[in-house]
């Protein structure tokens, strides 16, 4: 995947978080590549399967504390695990959906699948590598991970 395409996801992350928090509080780190044998994961992971012209997955992974804080900032009163699961899926859906502004409608996205911890080899082909976009907010780290095969 080319750098300019990665930029679309990076902007998507910023757009999502800037909606609810002070932009200066969010640090989006430099993207890096990882082997899929060691997937990056926090407490909850929202996975979007990509089909059509591109194939693979995009996921958002975040610790419980970050999701709790996001729910509060969004005005949600129910800060339960089921709402955190819902939110992590919604963030993944939004970032993947926004990427269609660059990739077009052939970039087909699934409804979110939410996991505790990391996606395993069923979702993440071991022989491939993924791009990780790290996010840091008040010492809480999350990430967007993009694992797409070349069309």
């Amino acid at each position, binding site marked *: 995947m080319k750098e300019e395409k990665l930029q679309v996801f990076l902007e998507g992350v910023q*757009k*999502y978080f800037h*909606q609810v928090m002070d932009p200066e509080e969010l640090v989006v780190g430099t993207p890096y590549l990882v082997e899929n044998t060691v997937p990056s994961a926090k407490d909850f992971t929202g996975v979007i399967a990509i089909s059509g012209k591109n194939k693979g997955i995009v996921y958002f992974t975040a610790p419980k504390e970050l999701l709790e804080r996001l*729910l509060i900032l*969004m*005005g*949600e009163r*129910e800060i339960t695990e*089921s*709402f955190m699961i*819902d*939110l992590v*899926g*919604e963030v993944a*859906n*939004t*970032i*993947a*959906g*926004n990427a*269609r*502004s660059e*990739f*077009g*409608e052939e*970039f087909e*996205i*699934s*409804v979110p699948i939410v996991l505790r911890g990391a996606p395993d080899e069923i979702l993440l082909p071991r022989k491939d590598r993924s791009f990780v976009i790290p996010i840091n907010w008040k010492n809480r780290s999350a990430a967007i991970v993009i694992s797409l095969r070349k069309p």
Partner: protein
Amino acid sequence: MARKLMIVDDSNVIRNRITRGSTRMDFEVVATATNGLEAVELYKQHRPDVVTMDLTMPKMDGLECIYELTNLDESANILVISALSDKATGIKALQLGARGFICKPFTDEDLFEALDEMLEGN
């Protein structure tokens, strides 16, 4: 009199956000649906004045649901609220009968403006 609103979205967080935002605009949320199939049934029961519609949903997606709802009621007021930000999808939704489109992530102001425009169009 408050206008009747139906919210269609598979996310609890989003349904709650739209509910909180819309009640500040003199809307009464008469139904919420988590997919297109539920939405069609609830539309028949409640006949809402405005429907907010997600696109990526299980069982029946938003585009198919717009088609079904506008077949049922050609004057249905459907506002799409979706993360799918490509032009082709927006155009498809409007061709199927949606009357407005806002992209996720959205602010309360985006929602107010869009709902306001829907009402002005009536």
